[in-house]
């Protein structure tokens, strides 16, 4: 599995079908790259932005879960 697929799988635990769109948005707007181009070195930054993006929408718990899940991929 690619890093993108791993990230989608982690985010899908809480976001379901919206996981891919959310990852896409975070990669393009925050990391300025396509999800397919994600590397392990991007995961710290990605985790931070995902948590930042999710907290106002779904609350701290989900944000924290997503952050931990992405960091675990390292």
């Amino acid at each position, binding site marked *: 599995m690619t890093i993108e697929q791993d990230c989608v799988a982690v985010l*899908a*635990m*809480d*976001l*379901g*079908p*919206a*996981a891919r*769109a*959310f990852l896409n*948005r975070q990669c393009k707007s925050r990391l300025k790259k396509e999800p397919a181009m994600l590397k392990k070195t991007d995961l710290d930054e990605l985790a931070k932005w995902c948590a930042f993006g*999710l907290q106002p*929408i*779904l*609350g701290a*718990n*989900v944000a924290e879960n997503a952050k931990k899940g992405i960091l675990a991929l390292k």
Partner: protein
Amino acid sequence: MKIRRKLLLSYFLIVGLFIAAGATLTYNTVKMAELQTAVKQQVEINDNAYAYAQGLDQKQFGTLMYATDNTQEGERIIVASAETIAPAETYLQTALANDSALLAKFNEVVDMDRNTINPAIAQIATVYNSNENDTVKYVAIWEQLTIMMTAVSQADVKLADIRTATMGNVAVATVASQNYANFSTLLAIGFITAISVISVGLAVAMGNRITRPLKKLADIAHKVSLGDLKQRYYLKQNIDIKTGDEIDELVDAFKRMINAFRVTEALSMEVAETEEIVEQ
């Protein structure tokens, strides 16, 4: 625990109660049947002891007739008495085998019959047919008749004791059987009550456990379907439904679905805002 397992456990609990009730009632019924058999045997012992006593009385009466010059009729009655006594003796020897006290008492009766009564009758017949004068005959016959009648009386007393003992056993068995019957009735009432209460309790508990969270979920689904995604109620991740079964999985999936709606909505709004800024 999964719903299926919960339902199966409830089912097995009820089935277990039914089996316990059935086993207990069957045990009581078997015990009552055993007591009935025991009562029947005691009654038969009583009847045979009575027949034996009747046979001895018959034998005594036949001997008296024989001694008073009714020899033919007397002999016929004595022979008939043997036909009454023999089967009764055979039955009692077998039936009393398990009761050593009563068997010993009955054996005393048999000994009296064989060693006292029968020899006295034989002696009476010998004297009656002898060539002695009437006075000598009268004295000798009367002596033997006295011995025989005394022995018959004693035998009657012992046989009466046996009959009293058997009637006592019948009374004890009847009381025991009645106790089993009363206990069975109480057990049946108890089990029926317990099974009814537990069945209703389980049905209500299981029904509530399954339908209550589903009703709550249906309520949430209804609001979500009307576009109501912004309430904190949905955002709160710990929707207070915890059943430990498939309903929990359904709740998790539902939460995920609501999250997806909210994220999608947020992303759409973000795009719209960006486009608005670009247009300006």
